[in-house]
C-alpha cells in the first residue's frame, strides 16, 4: 500500500471514479451511501408528516366528547396506520438515514461494505411504505392497532384486505431492515480506517451497531408472526385459533419478542446521537465513554428479556410475570448510567447554548418523564391499573418523541450543515424547539391524568359525562403547537437550503472524522484513507487523547484511486490487511426491489400468476445482480477465501 499525500489537483481520478452521472439512470442506479442516506432522511420525514396528519385527525376527533368527524372504522385505520407509520416508516428509517450517510464518514471509509445492498435496502423501504399506503386507496387500511392482536385480526373478525396489507407490508419492510442491519455490521467490522480500533469507535456507532444486531434476532419474530397470521387468514391455518389447538397468546409473545427490542432499535441510535452532540457543545469528551458504550450494548441484550411486560394483563403465570417485572426494573440501570454520563459531561464542560444542544436538553427532560412512567408500568399492580389506558399512550409518546424525535431534529441542526454545506437559522431553530417542547408536553402530559382517570386508549369517542373533555381539548390544542414547531423546523431547512450561511468544514468545532471533510463531502469521501490514533482525531491538540501515540494522520494515507477502493482492516484493532474493490452503480437493486413488490402484490390480490412472475423475477434479478462482470474476471485474484 502506497502512502502518499494527495494535493487538490490529484483528486480528479477519484472524482471520475466515484461521481454518479447526473442522469435519470444515474439517479436510479446510484450506490453512493450519502445520496442513499439523504433519501432515507427525506422519505422518513415524508412518512413523519403522513403519520402526523393521521395524528391530527385523531386529535380532532377526540377534541370534544361525542364528536363524529370520522367514522369509527376510519378512526381504527388512522390510529393503526399512525402507529405503523411512526414506528416502522419514520422512527427506524430516519436513524438509518443518519447511519447511512455518516457510517463510512465516521470510520474513514469510502462507502458501505455492500454498496448495492444499501441501495436495495432503500428501494425496498420506500416500496414497502408505498405498498402499505395503497391500502388507503382501496379503503382497507390496517385497522387492528399497530400490534394487531389476534383473534380480532383473524379473518373471521376482520375480513377484507386490511390485515393482509399489514402482514405483507411488514414482511416486505423487514427485508429492508434486515439487509440494512447486515450492511452496518459488516461495514463496521471490516471497513474502519487503520487505527480506528473498537475502543475508539465514535459513540454514535455503538447505538446503531447494537440496534443492527438486535434487528438480526428480533425481526424474524415479527416475520414469523406475520407469516402465521397471513396463513391463518388466507390458507385456513390455525396458529392463533384456540378452537383448533392454537393459541392467541402466541401472537402476543412473538410480537413482543420482536416489539420490545424494536423499541430499543428506534431509541438506542438516537441516544447515540445525544452522546455525540452533548460533548461537542459541552466542549469536552464524553464522560465515561466505556460505560456509555457498555450500557448501550447491555440495554440491547436486556431488551430481549422484558417482552412479557407488555402482557401483564394477559394472564401469564405469576412466576414469569415476576421475572419480567424484575428484568424491566434492571433495564433502567444502563439507561441511568448513560444519563449520569450526559449530566456529568454537561456539568464538567462549558456548555454553549446552540440549537442542537437545546434539543438535547429537551431530550433529557422528556427522557426522565418517559423513563419514570416506564418504571411505573413495569410494576405489575400499577400496570394492571393502567393497561390499555391513556397512561400507556402518554408513556410511549414521551419515550418515542422524547428519545427519537427530539434527538433526530437536534441531529438535523447538527449534521445538516455537513450534508448541505449550509447552516440553519438559530432564530428559527429556537422557535422550532420551544414550540415542539411546549406542544409535546401540552399534548402528552395530560394523557397521564386521563389514563389514571380511566380513559381507555383507542376509543373513537367518549361520553360527555365522563369529564375528559377539558384535558382532551388541551391535548388537541397542544398538537397544533407541536405540529407548528415541526413545520417551523422544516421551513428552517428550506430557508437554509436557499440562503443559509456557508458551513465550512467544521462549524461546531467537533471531534470526529466527518468534520475533517468539506461540507458537503465529495463523492469519494476521503482523498486519502486516514490513520486514526485516538477517539477524537480532530481534538488531539486540545485533549491530548492520543496519549503516547503519534497523532492521527488525516492528510497522508493510501490514495487508492485505481478503482472504487478503500482499506479493509481487522475486526478489533483495525490493522490494515486488504484493499477492497467495490462495485459501482447498478440498476439491479431497484429492479430486484420491484420484483419483490410484484411478488407481494401477487400475494395480496391473491393471484398465482403474479406471485409466480414476481418470484421468478426475483431469482433472475438476484442472479443478474451477482453475476461477475468481465473486467472482474480478468482482474485476477478475487479473494483469499
Amino acid at each position, binding site marked *: 500500500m502506497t502512502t502518499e499525500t494527495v494535493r487538490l489537483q490529484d483528486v480528479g481520478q477519484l472524482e471520475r471514479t466515484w461521481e454518479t452521472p447526473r442522469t435519470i439512470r444515474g439517479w436510479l442506479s446510484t450506490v453512493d451511501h450519502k445520496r442513499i442516506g439523504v433519501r432515507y432522511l427525506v422519505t422518513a420525514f415524508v412518512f413523519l408528516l403522513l403519520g402526523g396528519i393521521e395524528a391530527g385527525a385523531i386529535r380532532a376527533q377526540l377534541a370534544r366528547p361525542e364528536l363524529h368527524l370520522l367514522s369509527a372504522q376510519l378512526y381504527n385505520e388512522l390510529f393503526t396506520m399512525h402507529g405503523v407509520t411512526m414506528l416502522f416508516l419514520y422512527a427506524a428509517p430516519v436513524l438509518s438515514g443518519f447511519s447511512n450517510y455518516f457510517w463510512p464518514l465516521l470510520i474513514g471509509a469510502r462507502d458501505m461494505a*455492500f454498496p448495492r445492498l444499501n441501495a436495495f435496502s432503500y428501494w425496498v423501504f420506500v416500496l414497502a411504505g408505498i405498498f402499505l399506503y395503497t391500502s388507503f386507496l382501496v379503503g382497507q387500511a390496517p385497522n387492528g392497532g399497530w400490534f394487531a392482536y389476534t383473534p380480532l385480526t383473524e379473518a373471521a373478525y376482520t375480513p377484507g384486505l386490511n390485515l393482509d396489507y399489514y402482514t405483507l407490508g411488514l414482511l416486505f419492510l423487514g427485508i429492508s431492515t434486515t439487509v440494512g442491519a447486515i450492511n452496518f455490521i459488516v461495514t463496521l467490522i471490516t471497513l474502519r480506517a487503520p487505527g480506528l480500533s473498537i475502543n475508539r469507535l465514535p459513540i454514535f456507532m455503538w447505538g446503531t451497531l447494537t440496534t443492527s444486531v438486535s434487528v438480526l434476532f428480533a425481526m424474524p419474530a415479527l416475520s414469523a*408472526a406475520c407469516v402465521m397470521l397471513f396463513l391463518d387468514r388466507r390458507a385456513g391455518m390455525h*396458529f392463533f385459533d384456540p378452537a383448533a389447538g392454537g393459541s392467541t397468546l402466541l401472537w402476543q409473545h412473538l410480537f413482543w419478542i420482536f416489539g420490545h427490542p424494536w423499541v430499543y432499535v428506534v431509541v438506542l441510535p438516537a441516544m447515540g446521537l445525544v452522546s455525540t452532540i452533548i460533548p461537542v457543545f459541552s466542549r469536552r469528551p464524553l464522560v465515561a465513554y466505556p460505560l456509555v458504550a457498555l450500557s448501550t450494548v447491555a440495554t440491547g441484550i436486556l431488551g430481549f428479556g422484558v417482552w412479557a411486560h407488555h402482557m401483564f394483563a394477559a394472564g401469564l403465570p405469576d412466576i414469569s410475570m415476576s421475572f419480567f417485572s424484575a428484568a424491566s426494573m434492571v433495564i433502567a440501570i444502563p439507561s441511568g448510567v448513560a444519563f449520569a454520563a450526559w449530566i456529568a459531561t454537561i456539568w464538567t464542560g462549558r456548555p454553549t447554548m446552540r440549537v442542537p444542544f437545546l434539543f438535547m436538553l429537551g431530550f433529557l427532560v422528556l427522557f426522565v418523564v418517559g423513563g419514570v412512567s416506564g418504571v411505573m408500568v413495569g410494576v405489575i399492580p400499577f400496570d394492571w391499573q393502567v393497561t390499555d389506558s391513556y397512561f400507556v399512550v402518554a408513556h410511549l409518546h414521551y419515550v418515542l418523541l422524547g428519545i427519537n424525535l427530539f434527538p433526530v431534529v437536534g441531529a438535523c441542526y447538527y449534521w445538516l450543515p455537513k450534508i448541505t454545506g449550509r447552516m440553519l437559522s438559530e432564530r428559527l431553530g429556537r422557535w422550532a424547539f420551544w414550540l415542539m417542547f411546549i406542544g409535546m408536553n401540552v399534548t402528552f402530559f395530560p394523557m397521564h391524568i386521563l389514563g389514571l382517570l380511566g380513559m381507555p386508549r383507542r376509543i373513537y369517542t367518549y361520553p360527555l359525562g365522563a369529564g375528559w373533555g377539558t384535558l382532551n381539548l388541551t391535548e388537541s390544542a397542544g398538537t397544533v403547537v407541536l405540529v407548528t414547531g415541526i413545520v417551523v423546523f422544516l421551513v428552517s431547512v428550506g430557508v437554509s437550503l436557499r440562503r443559509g450561511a456557508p458551513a465550512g468544514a467544521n462549524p461546531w468545532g467537533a471531534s470526529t472524522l466527518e468534520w475533517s471533510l468539506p461540507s458537503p463531502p465529495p463523492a469519494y469521501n476521503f482523498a486519502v484513507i486516514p490513520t486514526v490514533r485516538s477517539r477524537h482525531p480532530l481534538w488531539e491538540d486540545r485533549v491530548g487523547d492520543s496519549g503516547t501515540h503519534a497523532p492521527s494522520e488525516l492528510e497522508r494515507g493510501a490514495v487508492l484511486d485505481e478503482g472504487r477502493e478503500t482499506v479493509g482492516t481487522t475486526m478489533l484493532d483495525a490493522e490494515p490487511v486488504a484493499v477492497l474493490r467495490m462495485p459501482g452503480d447498478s440498476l439491479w437493486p431497484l429492479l430486484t426491489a420491484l420484483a419483490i413488490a410484484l411478488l407481494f402484490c401477487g400475494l395480496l390480490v391473491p393471484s398465482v400468476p403474479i406471485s409466480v412472475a414476481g418470484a421468478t423475477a426475483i431469482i433472475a434479478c438476484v442472479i443478474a445482480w451477482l453475476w461477475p462482470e468481465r473486467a472482474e474476471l480478468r482482474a485476477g485474484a478475487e479473494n483469499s477465501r
Partner: protein
Amino acid sequence: MTSTRVVPLAGASRPVRSLGWWGIWMVVLTEGAFFAFLLFSYFYTGSLARGAWPPHGNPELTLTSVNTAILLASSGVLWWGDRSLHKGHTRRLMIALAVTIVLGVVFLGVQGVEYSRKAFGPDADAYGSLFFTITGFHGAHVAVGIIMLATTLVRAWRGHFAPTRRVGVTVTAIYWHFVDVVWLVVFTSLYVSPHLGVL
C-alpha cells in the same frame, strides 16, 4: 460475484475473510433466528395442548431418517467439492455441485412423498399448520439452496473459480450447510422429540 472484492495486502498478518463470508454468516444468524421462532411456536403450542401431542400420533421415522441421511450426505459431498477447489480441481467441484443438486432434489421429492402420505393437512389443526409450515419453510430454503448451487455450477463450468477466487463457492456452501443443520434441528424437534415424550 459483483460485490465488494477483497485483495489482501502483501504484508497482511493473517488470512482475510471476504465480505461475502461475513454477509452470508449474518444471513445464517437471522434465518436461524427465524427457524428458532417457528420452533418456539411449535413447542409453545405443544406445551399448551390439552389432548395428545402430536394429535395425529407420532410421525413415522423411517422414510424421514433416510431423507435426513441423504441431506447430510449432500453436505459431505459439497464439502469435498470445496476442498477440491482449494487444490485446483475445478472438475471435481463441478461433480460435487451436480451431485449435491441431485441429492437436494431427491430430498424435496421424498418430502413430497411424505406430505402425500399424511392423513391431515395444514388446515386440520394448529399442529398441522405448524408441521407443514416449518417443514415447508425448510423445503423452501432447500429450493433456494438448489438455485444457488445450480448458479454456482454454471459459473464453475464457465471457469469463474480458482483456488484463489472462490467466494461464490464458499457462500453457497455455508448456506447449504446451514440448511442442513436447520434440518437436523427440525427433524429432532418435529420427528424425534415426540418419540422421546418431551412434551
